[in-house]
């Protein structure tokens, strides 16, 4: 199915024309999933994404075209369309040469053959049934359990006009469980896990565990009261609190926004952008995590990147085009949703290493504020740096203790402003459950986030309860 080296050579030679650089991205991705609703397996689904995307880069310009027809004729036509943006200059007659076969990326995904082949559907359906039983048994208030189990295997090959030819075989497994509890109000709880690993993952992290956690959150939320409104101290919980780093800082450090000067972090490498308690990494090399890339979608190996070190901005996340325009190197951050999209600089797994405080010290230091245990997601506006994130589970803190659970609210802040207000960092860092997906420019890619418990001196909390 995958075009061979000589086909890619002819296609890339046609594409390159007068451009600086051309690449071809081949993808064959199969996703198999089952969905459980109301105690019954409700639907099975198979998704197949198959095609080649061809890009031609010329300075700031990029042309792109894709084809789901893998014949050489169709690929040559696609190359011609992709090259339209780079025509006009004196065409260089230059042939592209590739190795005879692709070099397989060093796997970071557990088993060499990631998906076990035995009785797949039966296994997946069994996971869902076990999650359902455990979710309902967890608490008599649980009224509904909905769950999805998905297994994806994405084969990619990237061939470039400068002679790179690499392949990668990427598994992704995800179990997501949603519970609804009928208490004072109807409370929802969600928990998901999985990663770029084999289905064996769920022998260590059982479907029952995932379901019980979703049920616990649903029950907490079914007792929740209205969140207060106004500025207050906020403690962000370990794990999914990493959404804060992803939104408040991460997006602003992506190479495209900084090359264009549209990010508030543009031109600020070496400057102080956060409290000196703040260090932030983005890592494509963590084995088995959702955001891990043995090679990115341009064929560059994933890296461990220091974004912010003790409050000082150290560097951006780069794909090839933006790196080349900024005189930097690609950090293995060129990612795309599928062959139908050009790559963009994207985060992989973004997290903060441990600080010195204990969880107890941090919570005890707050007289009145909010403890944000976990987030359902977030969003940022790049130029000004305003971000919001949405509470999935949270509590009031009164006199150093967690008290009433709070109903869903948004927290709003400004990236650098919030990062300057980090006054305590815990020693309990961990990565969040593996189910986050990041959207940018209409493209969705799996990512990881993580953080220790962190205290922010003041954040605007968007509840509907006005105190006093």
């Amino acid at each position, binding site marked *: 199915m995958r075009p061979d080296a000589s086909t890619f050579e002819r296609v890339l030679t046609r594409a390159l024309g007068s451009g600086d650089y051309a690449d071809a991205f081949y993808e064959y991705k199969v996703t198999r999933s089952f969905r459980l609703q109301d105690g019954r397996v409700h639907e099975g689904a198979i998704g197949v994404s198959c095609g080649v995307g061809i890009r031609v880069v010329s300075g700031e310009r990029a042309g792109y075209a894709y084809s789901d027809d893998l014949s050489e004729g169709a690929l040559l036509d696609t190359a011609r369309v992709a090259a339209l943006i780079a025509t006009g200059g004196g065409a260089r007659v230059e042939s592209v040469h590739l190795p005879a076969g692709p070099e397989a990326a060093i796997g970071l995904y557990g088993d060499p053959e990631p998906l076990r082949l035995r009785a797949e559907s039966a296994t997946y359906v069994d996971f869902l049934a076990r999650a359902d039983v455990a979710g309902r048994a967890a608490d008599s208030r649980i009224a509904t359990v909905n769950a999805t189990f998905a297994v994806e295997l994405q084969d990619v090959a990237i061939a470039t006009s400068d002679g790179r030819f690499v392949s990668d075989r990427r598994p992704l497994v995800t179990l997501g469980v949603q519970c609804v509890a009928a208490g004072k109000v109807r409370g929802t709880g969600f928990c998901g896990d999985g990663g770029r690993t084999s289905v064996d993952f769920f022998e260590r992290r059982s479907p029952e565990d995932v379901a019980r956690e979703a049920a616990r959150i649903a029950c907490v939320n079914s007792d929740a009261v209205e969140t207060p409104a106004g500025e207050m101290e906020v403690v962000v919980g370990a794990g999914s609190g990493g959404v804060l780093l992803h939104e408040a800082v991460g997006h602003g450090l992506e190479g495209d926004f900084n090359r264009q000067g549209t990010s508030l972090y543009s031109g600020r490498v070496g400057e102080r952008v956060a409290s000196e308690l703040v260090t932030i990494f983005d890592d494509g090399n963590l084995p088995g995590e959702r955001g891990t890339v043995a090679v990115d979608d341009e064929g560059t190996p994933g890296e461990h990147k220091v974004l912010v070190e003790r409050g000082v901005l150290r560097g951006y996340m780069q794909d090839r085009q933006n790196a080349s325009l900024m005189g930097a190197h690609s950090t293995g951050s060129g990612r795309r949703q599928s062959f139908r999209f050009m790559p963009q600089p994207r985060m992989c797994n973004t997290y903060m290493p441990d600080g010195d405080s204990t969880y107890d010290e941090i919570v005890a230091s707050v007289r009145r504020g909010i403890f944000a245990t976990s987030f359902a997601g977030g*969003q940022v506006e790049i130029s000004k740096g305003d971000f919001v994130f949405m509470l999935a589970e949270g509590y009031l803190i009164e006199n150093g203790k967690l008290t009433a659970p709070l109903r869903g609210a948004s927290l709003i802040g400004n990236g650098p402003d919030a990062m300057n207000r980090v006054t305590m960092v815990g020693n309990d860092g961990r990565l969040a459950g593996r189910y986050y997906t990041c959207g940018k420019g209409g493209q969705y890619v799996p990512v990881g986030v993580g953080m220790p418990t962190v205290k922010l001196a003041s954040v605007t909390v968007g509840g509907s309860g006005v105190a006093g």
Partner: protein
Amino acid sequence: MPDEVDVAREVVELAMRAGATQADASYTVSDRFSTEARAAEVVKLEQSVARGVTLRVFDRGAKATLSTSDLAPERLRAFVREAVDAARFVAADPHGGLPEPGGFAVDWPELATYAGDVRARPAEEKIADALTLEAVVRDTDSRIFNSSGSRIADATSTFALANSYGFAGSYRSSQVAASTAPIARDGDDKRPGSYGSAARSYAALEPIGSIARKAARKAVASIGARKPATMRCAVVFDRDVASLVLSDFFAAVNAANVAIGNSFLANRIGDRIGSDLATIVDDGRLPNGLGTSPFDSEGVATRRTVVVAGGVLQTFLYDTYYARRLGAASTGNASGGGIGPNNFYLLPGAGTVEALVASTASGVFVTDTIGFATESVTGTYSRGARGFLIENGELGRPIDGFTIAGNLVSMLGALDAVADDLVFDQGIVAPTIRIAEMTVSGT
């Protein structure tokens, strides 16, 4: 090259031969173009044809689906067999299966879903549009110093559907979108503005100059914005933001959410759920509408459905499956394997936006929101926001860094003004609205 409908029919036959008791299949061919200009340069040019097959197979009412861009005959056959096999692992379901044969679209009026100018317009002119949009937006005001780019994108598609009852149909559609995202300088701060518009044809698209001026005004008008005080007050949502609120409301009338306990409107049909200004309609047959089609993704004829009439909930929006489950009839809202809006809109009022603001003693006027926290289970609504203070019936200083919060139920009840500025430039649209009281959280 076989007709698109024939491809869909062949896939249905493959599924029936593989053992499905019922099946439907669609084949979509979509010709897409997009270009982006930044400063004086064309920086992106993308052009492709996307093809895809989606298949639903039923066995004892149990459903499995296949969605694939791999149309090579042997592999397509193998995946169809795999889908039929997957359905065996799904629970038997008395409500599952194709629509009743009487419900399919038979003929339909001209709905103007397709415009010839989208394919006919030369790429050079579309590129020139993007360059013009970028140039005008940067020239509008000297404080605009940068942009995230100006974009023109279009697509023409053929959607063909066939099923094992013998229904077969297809229709063409087109869409054009233009958008731009300028950034104004405010001391050391950057103030983004963005605006876009869409239509079925280049002829019907909002003029480039108008799109540019609106985006530029948004960026410049927010210069000097500060956090407002925390308060309870009237909130005016401009039409773009009101459309997002209506999208949140759609989730609560989506019968799938109702059936699984994920909607705060379950069991509320016939109840007053909003003020008498709240009349909400779903119309699949609106000529030129971006949500218009002759039939939904199951082949059921689209129609006009009044969802909320003068504040009273009339119906949910159904596909065939959830209609059977909830004892109703499909409203022609099946969409890509779930339930989706056709043209879903809030009926406009009589007065202008200016008059609406003038009648507001004090409050906030919201022009942008960020976040997506609405829970359809409880209706809890909370968003980050930007806009202006309203003082004595006039727009005052720009504000940002605040949130607005409430509950969709109480918001609909407190809907006390609706302006006349409804424009069908998306599938879900609303005019400018005012909610009498919500919580604004700032300092």
